[in-house]
């Protein structure tokens, strides 16, 4: 494997050389370099202490926690409904997925059945969020490595979807659109129109991104064969999402444990071969096409129906009724001030977010608040493999590594 060859080579003066006495001796020492916490390509506040031998990385120690806000502690102090806006702030570029993963976990705890239409709406929005996430990743990764044009193209198209979110729920980033047992509101005809237009507009744009990157020799040279990890190691480190699939493991919860409307859609999961940055890039771009496919199918299959499970003791009443109907107002008030009564028990529920497996482990002892809520954040677990994957590469490849995991520090530090 190329990985072994790239391990440190120490440059020393040849002692066998006839004039070795008169040659100047090279002073060698290890250099410690602090990268971050204010570095523009660490995507937030992340510090990595790099031990260098020349320009080769000998060891890198991530220093996390600059964005630690104690979200898990906060969860213990609020009701289940109140925690939804907190999840937005985990992975703040892809809030919908966090809402989705959290609501699914609570629904598993409460054994709730979500109505069909709500499942389709959830899947569509989740896939739109996946497109946004991958566009954001592609743009910033290319920018970090030195291909600037793609950044503008990706962000131009991402803007369309963020405006679409704005129309859907009134926020572009911190959305809080998912609710326990359903979703907050239905699509309007205008939203449907815009989404359909986007689906026609978008696939040619993906081709454009690909042309920009794959004809860029610098970009290809800086991604191919960089940050290689074998399938066995990737599994042992608990990597997930495109980072794991790049190494040839087809672990995708949408296929392994189908949920929501995914079992009713036909789509494929792209899997890489070499486990390098280029393969992970390729997977993410291919997933853009797959997401478009999933959204198209969902739009075709979706039927009229309720968008919220009808379990008054757990789910919120429709917003229109809250302002006109006394009982609904009481229901809303009680749910938000006291919460619903969760059964004692313990669950884990993982969801395939675009970064990897985002899971929630909830321990309940009854009552309206979780006793303990643990977030399995893919960014955090990916950082665990950083040292192992960076060894032997050049210092400039550290930038590629930050990008290849698609880390967001809000999620990593929680």
């Amino acid at each position: 494997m190329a990985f072994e060859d790239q391990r440190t080579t120490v440059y020393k003066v040849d002692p066998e050389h006839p004039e070795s006495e008169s040659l100047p001796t090279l002073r060698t020492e290890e250099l410690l370099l602090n990268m971050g916490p204010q570095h523009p390509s660490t995507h937030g506040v992340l510090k990595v202490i790099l031990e260098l031998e020349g320009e080769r990385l000998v060891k890198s120690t991530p220093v996390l926690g600059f964005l630690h806000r104690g979200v898990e502690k906060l969860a213990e102090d609020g009701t289940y409904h109140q925690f939804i806006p907190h999840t937005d702030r985990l992975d703040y570029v892809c809030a919908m997925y966090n809402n989705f993963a959290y609501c699914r976990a609570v629904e598993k705890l409460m054994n709730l059945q979500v109505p069909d239409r709500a499942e389709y709406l959830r899947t569509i929005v989740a896939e739109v969020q996946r497109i946004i996430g991958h566009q954001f990743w592609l743009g910033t990764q290319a920018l970090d490595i030195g291909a600037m044009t793609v950044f503008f193209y990706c962000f131009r198209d991402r803007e369309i979807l963020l405006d679409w979110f704005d129309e859907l729920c009134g926020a572009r980033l911190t959305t809080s659109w998912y609710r326990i047992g359903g979703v907050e509101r239905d699509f309007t005809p205008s939203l449907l129109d815009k989404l359909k237009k986007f689906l026609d507009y978008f696939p040619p744009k993906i081709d454009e991104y690909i042309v920009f990157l794959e004809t860029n020799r610098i970009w290809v040279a800086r991604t191919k064969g960089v940050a290689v990890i074998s399938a066995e190691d990737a599994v042992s480190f608990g990597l997930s999402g495109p980072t794991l699939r790049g190494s040839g493991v087809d672990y995708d919860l949408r296929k392994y444990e189908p949920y929501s409307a995914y079992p009713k859609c036909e789509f494929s999961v792209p899997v890489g071969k070499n486990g390098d940055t280029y393969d992970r890039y390729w997977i993410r771009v291919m997933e853009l096409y797959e997401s478009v496919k999933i959204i198209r199918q969902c739009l075709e299959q979706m039927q009229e129906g309720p968008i919220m499970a009808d379990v008054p003791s757990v789910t919120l009443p429709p917003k229109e009724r809250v302002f006109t109907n006394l009982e609904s107002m009481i229901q809303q008030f009680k749910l938000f001030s006291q919460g619903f009564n969760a059964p004692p028990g313990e669950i884990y529920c993982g969801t395939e977010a675009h970064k990897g497996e985002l899971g929630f482990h909830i321990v309940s002892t009854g009552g309206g608040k979780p006793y303990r809520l643990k977030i399995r954040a893919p960014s955090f677990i990916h950082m665990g493999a950083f040292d192992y994957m960076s060894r032997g590469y050049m210092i400039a490849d550290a930038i590629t590594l930050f990008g290849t995991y698609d880390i967001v520090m809000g999620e990593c530090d929680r």
Partner: protein
Amino acid sequence: MHQLAQRVQDTFPVGFVSSTEWRGDVSVTVTREKIHEVAQFLHDDPGMDFDYIIHVSSVDWPDDEDRFEVVWEFYSIRKRQRIRLKTRVPESDCIVDSLTDIWKGADFMEREVYDMMGIRFRNHPDLRRILMPDDYTEGYPLRKDFPLRGKGWRDTFDFLDEVPR
């Protein structure tokens, strides 16, 4: 009893404590002394084949005799099954075997448990705080006796008396 839990019980009649199955999640509790052996068995046995570590978590039960609970979640990518492994740790001897030699990913996850709950891991290669600062001395934030607003130097702030009019 679920067949996975049954197999753990059959293989480790001494270390096995209890098992539950709720909402489709199988969970097995074993004694602290056996945790490494059981984990090795879960990883190596072809019928188990739990090659993927999902997360390591911890729960604080202040009223119980063994105060802390460490929770591991494993997944088998080939067999597509999952299991939850739990053990109890007393406050007086707050240490449990590290599983970093079986799953490499356990490194950061165990460091987080140490940082947040104060449970130490035997044979861990680099057991330091990970999210809180290295010199943080105010305790372990996710313990139930740690106040939500934090503690330490903030408590020593002098508050100004109401300004006389």
